[in-house]
């Protein structure tokens, strides 16, 4: 169950519109390494995760990604606010404007619509966590690319915050993967699906420990 908090995770206050920049940043909303794909990926993967640490990390990072999606949408909204149709057309955002006016719609920087093929939920916690680690790094690279072309400090500030969260998520997913590996049965040397083919036996005692 989710409940909305009426605030952004980190403030977004952009006073100078820049539709060209909005088009770049829109990729982190609905693009291949964007925040929607991140949230849907992690929240969908939870059900095949056999271990509590992994379930908690997927739930809590998947939830935080919803807040990042709201921050990115707020950045795009503020970058395109108050512009005339001529200004938008001249910026290169014309085709988007024709279909969506100033509305927020999930697409990649190149105009490809968001779709679920941008992430996997493989039903194998090891496979899924490797994808999650890669996803966080890809998103961090995208934010690095955005920061190289953004000069407005009001835009850089929330983008830097989001970039740093990718780094934190990469660390936490790495720890969750290590926990899954610690649960592997010694006979499952090649790390086959511990949620389906090779459920851990030796490691299950550790899962019962609920104190420090």
């Amino acid at each position, binding site marked *: *169950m989710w409940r909305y908090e009426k605030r952004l995770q980190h403030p977004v206050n952009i006073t100078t519109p820049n539709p060209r920049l909005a088009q770049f940043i829109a990729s982190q909303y609905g693009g291949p390494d964007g925040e929607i794909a991140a949230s849907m990926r992690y929240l969908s993967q*939870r059900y095949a995760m056999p271990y509590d640490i992994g*379930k908690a990390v997927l*739930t809590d990072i998947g939830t935080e990604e919803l807040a990042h999606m709201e921050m990115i949408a707020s950045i795009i909204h503020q970058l395109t606010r108050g512009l005339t149709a001529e200004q938008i057309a001249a910026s290169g955002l014309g085709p988007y404007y024709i279909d969506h006016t100033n509305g927020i719609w999930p697409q990649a920087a190149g105009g490809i619509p968001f779709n679920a093929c941008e992430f996997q939920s493989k039903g194998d916690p090891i496979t899924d966590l490797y994808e999650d680690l890669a996803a966080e790094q890809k998103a961090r690279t995208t934010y690095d690319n955005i920061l190289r072309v953004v000069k407005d400090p009001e835009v850089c500030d929330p983008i830097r915050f989001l970039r740093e969260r990718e780094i934190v998520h990469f660390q936490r997913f790495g720890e969750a993967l290590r926990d899954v590996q610690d649960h592997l049965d010694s006979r499952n040397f090649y790390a086959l699906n511990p949620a389906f083919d090779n459920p851990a036996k030796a490691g299950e005692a550790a899962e019962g420990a609920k*104190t420090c």
Partner: protein
Amino acid sequence: MNETYSQFNCGQLKAMLDQSSFAMDDVLLFLDTHPCDQAALAYYQSVSRMRRDALAAYQTNCGPVMVDGVNSANGYWNWIQGPWPWEGGR
């Protein structure tokens, strides 16, 4: 915490939390489109109190629901402890 809630077990507290929370989900939508409806505002106040009390009692006695309601007095982050909502059982 509202003392009257201490007589209930975790199953009862969970039912009270679910019911008051759903009443909140529903009156919230009604108030979004009827922001001046005084009867709905009064109902919201009572639902809000019921959810707050049920939530506090449940989190104290049964386990965390919200991330800022984890009882860590035993030195353990039991937020991660199953069963999780999608697994049934609570």
